């Protein structure tokens, strides 16, 4: 099966209607960094392509409550955005270290999500931040929380008529004291698919964990939240014991497999260590800030 036609959408509306009226075996292309390879290797088929690159959906808009990221915003644009860097450091790190500069220049956030790879680097931060995906069908727009978007490797809830148009991440209030981390394990320094990735967000209130999201990638059919680890941490102090217990618990929240990249056993060990590492880093950051803050208040007094 070879691609017979390519249609270029000139606006979000046009893209949405092209998709809505698209024939079977039509696929969307934005950066093409996954799709072109999949077509060549016969892993996906397409007779027609709808090109979204000129559809004007590449905005990154920030207001006081949220950042709205157009589906065709490139990974490079995400990495450079000061608002994302300031409010969503895990998303920033994931974007800045994804693949290589050449791929970041082409690849889009929408593509990274809709390709639905369990190892997608942007997805774990979006899970950690409770992102919402805006999906359009013709003129109707609905919102899908990211944790209900994926159904399996390469699979998600969108139908042939649906178009992902925007990703919305809500900013935490300054009083919520949110900290977050992204960790990625690839087997070389750059341009590598994650063997495990992890994103952790955590809010402390009066020294206790008020809320935490621990998202893990490449260790289950979709990226997953480590629900039992999160439950163990809520209401606790970030002590080494609590951290270690959460890290052990996270291993039970995943279902890794052996594949060409690595083994299930290895992934379990790394998940345990990554959860501990991310939490230890956050605890160290909190400790440093507290020490700094109290020093400052002393010097003021």
């Amino acid at each position: 099966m070879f691609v017979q036609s390519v249609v270029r959408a000139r606006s979000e509306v046009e893209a949405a209607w092209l998709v809505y009226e698209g024939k079977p075996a039509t696929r969307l292309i934005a950066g093409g960094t996954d799709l072109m390879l999949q077509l060549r290797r016969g892993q996906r088929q397409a007779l027609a392509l709808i090109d979204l690159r000129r559809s004007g959906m590449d905005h990154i808009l920030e207001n006081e409550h949220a950042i709205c990221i157009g589906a065709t915003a490139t990974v490079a644009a995400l990495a450079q955005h000061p608002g994302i860097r300031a409010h969503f450091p895990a998303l920033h790190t994931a974007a800045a270290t994804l693949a290589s500069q050449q791929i970041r220049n082409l690849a889009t956030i929408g593509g990274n999500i809709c390709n639905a790879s369990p190892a997608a680097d942007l997805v774990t931060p979006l899970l950690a931040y409770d992102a919402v995906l805006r999906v359009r069908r013709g003129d109707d727009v609905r919102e899908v929380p990211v944790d209900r978007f994926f159904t399996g490797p390469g699979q998600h809830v969108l139908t042939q008529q649906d178009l992902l148009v925007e990703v919305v991440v809500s900013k935490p209030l300054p009083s919520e004291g949110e900290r977050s981390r992204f960790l990625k394990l690839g087997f070389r320094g750059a341009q590598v698919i994650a063997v495990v990735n992890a994103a952790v967000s955590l809010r402390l209130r009066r020294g206790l964990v008020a809320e935490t999201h621990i998202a893990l990638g490449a260790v289950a059919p979709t990226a997953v939240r480590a629900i039992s680890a999160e439950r163990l941490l809520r209401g606790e102090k970030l002590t080494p014991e609590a951290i270690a217990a959460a890290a052990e618990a996270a291993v039970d929240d995943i279902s890794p497999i052996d594949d060409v990249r690595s083994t299930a056993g290895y992934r379990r060990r790394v998940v345990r260590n990554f959860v501990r590492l991310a939490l230890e880093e956050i605890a160290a950051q909190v400790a440093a800030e507290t020490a700094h803050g109290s020093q400052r208040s002393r010097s003021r007094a």
Partner: protein
Amino acid sequence: MTARKRSSGARARGRRPRRVVPARSALAPTGVVGRPGLRVDALAKVDGSARYIDDLRFPDLLYAAVRTSDLPHAEVLRIDVTDAQQVPGVVAVATFRDVPGQNQVGCVRPDQPLLVETRARWVGDRIALIAATDPATAKAAARVVKVDAVPLPGVFDVEQALATGAPAVHTGGNLIEEFCIERGDAELALRQADVVVEHRYLAPWQEHAYLEPQGVIAVPERGSMTIYGSMQCPFYVQSAVARLLGLPLSRVRVVQTVTGGAFGGKEDYPSEPACCAALLAHKSGRPVKFVYNREQDIQWSTKRHRMVIQHRLAARRDGTLLGAEIEILVDAGAYCGLTGIVAERANTSSVGPYLVPNVRVRTRTIYTNNPFGGAFRGFGAPQVTLAHEGQLDALAERLGRDPLDLRRQNALRPYAVAAWGEKLAPPVEYLETLAAAERLSGWSALRRQVEAHNRAGGRTRLGLGVGCCMYGSCLHAGGQHLEGSGALLQVHRDGSVSAAIGLTEMGQGAATVVARVAAEVLGVAVDQVEVLPTDTALVPDSGPTVASRTTPMAGHAVANAARQLRAQLLPAATGLLRCRANQVELSGGWARGPGRKKVAFADVAAAAFQAKAHLAASGWYAPPRKQFDRATGLGQPYSAYAYATQIALCEVDLATGVARVKKFFCAHDVGRAIFPDGVCGQIEGGAVQGMGYALTERLVVRDGRILNANFTDYLIPTIEDAPEVAIALIESGDEGGDKGRGTASQAKGPFGAKGIGEPSLIPAPAAVANAVSHALGARLTELPLLPDVIMAEIARRNLDNVPFVESAAT
């Protein structure tokens, strides 16, 4: 002696290498040799004007596709190509029945048909070839070839292949041949030793990962065939195509196109795509292009041989080596290819640059249904070096000795007898490389630093590892009939020079070396010399471009031709300068006479042309004959030896098992650096390719099929993985010859140069494996040391139960 040093990598660019050069030598070059400068092909490669095979077009060009076996081992009952022939756009379909000559591409043994007749022995075996007007049609037609095949049990492990009752890949069993070294009494030495260190090493396959995949175009004319392509050894391709088509060699011409990397992967293998294209071109009467994509290239082309090495090393308590017993199993894959030649070098190199009086080595080559083993930079040496250097570090650890010190104690010195019984003629520069690497790395201080870091605990551990090698330069005695090498030099009437050689530029810098040698001898500037593409019609069969032999062999041939031309030019120069021949000096584009008289080289060339001088010369070089006994593995296997010591500083992350090379130090005996920037580039490249082999490059093979035949999952190092590489060059700069009674000659290249292509890689995997082993305090003997492998060791000893972040514990 002078010294220069250079570091490179992402962090430190532009520093010079440390060079150890004799102050004055009779043959010291005066011109461009040894000077900084550009590669002659640099600009064309940077600005995109270099024409690779896929850039070339011919009228009526057809595109080839192959139908390969779906099964790793099968009896093929029937091949039906009628459907494929009817696909619109298909011009020719070929099976074994269409071969006019011999259906055979085995480069040493005739065990490999180009096209399957009745038996498929691995998943790369070709069943039918298609030529069509576009690549997609050819591919679609290949899919509809019908093959009736009965699967046979396969064998995918060398040890199992040797067991009785194992499926036989070829009639006659799976053992292909044996090599050995028998000297002294190794058994007795092992019995009487104070210490015996024994380990089993596993050196896996490695993919060459050259930037440009395999590719050829075959252009037919009535009764003859011209092949253009990306390759290392045009004369191999010429012989293979002539045998397949039943043509005399004179009717097969092979022209090498600009070649984007080879590393051994374009030594034997290009004969296969060339034969495919040639057969289709013969059948269709039209030019046929066959260029692989990356997946095909990785799936079908040869790999570094997988070897299993059982190594026992015996020593006295004081560290003196007494004996070694080494068993090497080499996985050839389904066909022999160059396996015997690779095994011969592995066999000879298996003891290393050490004085070991009692040696027993047995190397066996074995058929399996696995991927095909072939030539790869180092040619069997990196695998055995992993073992002998692992053993030296293991012994040092056991005896509580400094690893460099233990090597120094047992090092081969001038007039010492090597494992294969050869008394080594000086100079033997091994100790110099040890000393240079020690200085370059600041060894003692660095070791103390590493120990302090590891005592402190925390998330990472550091380790230091040493790797050393002694590389037999040029072909083994077993292949010395191929060692002659030619060149053709022509001086044009404007003073410009054309040079053709029988060996090839494949990215390693041969063209620059050839231009420099010609320029040095003729006394012209480098940019006056144009190096032509290698063409079998221009220069006689010069053997293969392998074994780090291009600088010595092509270099000598070019120097030989240039000296002849010099003699042809001298009468014109003496006429213009009005002086005697011995008063003329040719250098830097000028002919200088007594006083301050000089004329431009171009004027000399014009005058010589007017005087009807013969301004072309054919150069030839063949090293002296070597005596070697295959039955005992004793004698003089090589013409000269190049020594190297490399040191790796590695860091292991206990949270993930990821190992990284932090710093890398290389000390190489290069004889003479004709093009120092090129030498350093090759050393950096070889070292990093060796690091990839040690750390990240894992070919996932199941039932003979490669599951990660792509660069997404087969991980070669990126610039982010390349550490700072510091280099010391040791230049003894002497062409050598027969000196020192009772010792063999040390025949080196022009100006004393030794090849560096392979020694740059050979010790690197061993150094890295030793460094990681040092960091973990455990001997890791199976490559690659991917994080999951390292993590297994970390998990076994619970080394990751440490606080990863310091302040979190408080």
